[in-house]
């Protein structure tokens, strides 16, 4: 397989309903869906609100502030493209506005990384130069 094929498996599958989310990431903005009927703010993107099933779903800008809900440090690569990246941290990020998402914690010190730690979004490029959003600890606010 060519490198492109190997990376293809990693890229998000872009659909009509999630395209604005990924387009916004490319512009350095983190967004989530917000339901016009019940105000539920949610990720991953969907064209129906999972709370009330309304299709009146809009977009809302997020602050990029959040806390670590949990995290895990990879010591084994599950994909050839991540072989030279271990160890790396994947976290469930609890965003201030309510939704949670999967992302990475970067610039971390594993002795201090813990559940509840404040973190801030950083807009970066993933493999294949695809825009992603990672998170870094907010210095001085650990704990």
């Amino acid at each position, binding site marked *: 397989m060519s490198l492109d094929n190997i990376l293809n*498996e990693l890229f998000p599958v872009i659909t009509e309903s999630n395209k604005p989310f990924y387009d916004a990431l490319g512009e350095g903005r983190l967004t989530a869906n917000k339901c016009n009927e019940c105000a539920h703010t949610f990720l991953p993107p969907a064209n129906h609100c999972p709370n009330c099933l309304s299709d009146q779903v809009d977009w809302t800008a997020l602050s990029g502030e959040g806390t670590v809900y949990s995290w895990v*440090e990879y*010591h*084994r690569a*599950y994909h050839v493209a*991540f072989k030279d990246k271990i160890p790396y941290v*994947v976290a469930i990020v609890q965003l201030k506005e309510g939704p949670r998402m*999967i992302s990475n914690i970067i610039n971390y010190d*594993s002795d201090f990384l813990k559940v509840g730690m404040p973190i801030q979004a950083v807009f970066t490029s993933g493999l294949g130069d695809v825009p992603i959003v*990672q998170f870094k600890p907010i210095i001085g606010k650990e704990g």
Partner: protein
Amino acid sequence: MGSISEKYCIIGVGHTKFGKHPGRTTLEMNVEAIKNAIEDCGINKSEIDAVLCKYPTSNHSMMYSTQVAQAVGIVPKVSGVIDMGGATNINLIQYAITSMELGQCTTAVISFADNPLTGSRNAYTHPWGNDGLYGWFGTPPAYGMIAQRHMDLYGTKSEQLGAIAVAAHKHASLNPNAQSRKVISIEDHQNSKFIAKPLHLYDCCLVSDGGAAVIVTSLENARNLGIKNPVTILGLGQSHPSWDIELREEITVSGAKESGRMAFEMAGLRPQDMDFAQIYDCFSIVNLITLEDYGFCEKGEGGSFVENGRIELGGSLPVNTSGGLLSETGMPGLQLIIEGVRQLRGECGERQVPNARLGVVSNQGGVMTTHSTMILGR
């Protein structure tokens, strides 16, 4: 439908060798397991009118139960494949009982076989959802995420997870069927490499080829068939949290909480009535969280509960007396049901729980995505 508690039973259990089966198909291993289960209860194959299967996890195949039925020469009235990962087996038993209540069949075989050890493990290494660019792959890291939160919220220690692995390996050392019969210490656990920190190698289940089967019928039919030692199904439960772990209200609480409540209520029993527990332990943390969610201890106290030999043979709650997924076989769940049956029949030799009369078996799949519970008695 009234209560089915004490109306149905498991009459036969069988399996292949656990370990490597190079060159054998999953169908062939299903056939061997079913043959052994039929011989175990001594019934005629023609009694079986329902064939229910979990498809081989590492190699999905359509309408798999019809392939198994064909291979064992049965034209079933009721057949089906349920896909709830490691929770499937108990769900299939529930489907069998439901079909019997409807009068559609009388005796069902539930079987599973897979060969991820000598075959392909690719099915386990795809990215989770749309998050491949974040390196979000694999089953052990997802359980590591759950373990880390449990540790941070409740002070659970890696050494306490180690106590679970130590107990499983100790029990497997007394089990001639076990794939790994090596006794390990807490130090061995701590010194084993990180797979996905905080999980060490010894926190993770074995990878195994093999097949297993159980035969279910009504107690009334078991008597008619002259079965001497039926093991009674007293309670059943199931509950299934979300697919994406980040969408769960709290990842340190599993489907075991609701599933266990349902099963104990049906059985009219409490956790403290159990003589043993066979708990799905694809990872040590699952065992700990399931014991909490079933109510053997409070949420957050699982770490201290599993220490000091309490879950070992001779302790107050022997858990995974055959070695479980950590040390008997990594097969997704049927082996735990089989061990529950054997304990209640008093067939376990060196690893027998003295005078075992009641036990609970858990099955779960995905990343605590699915859960089912069965309470057995004699």
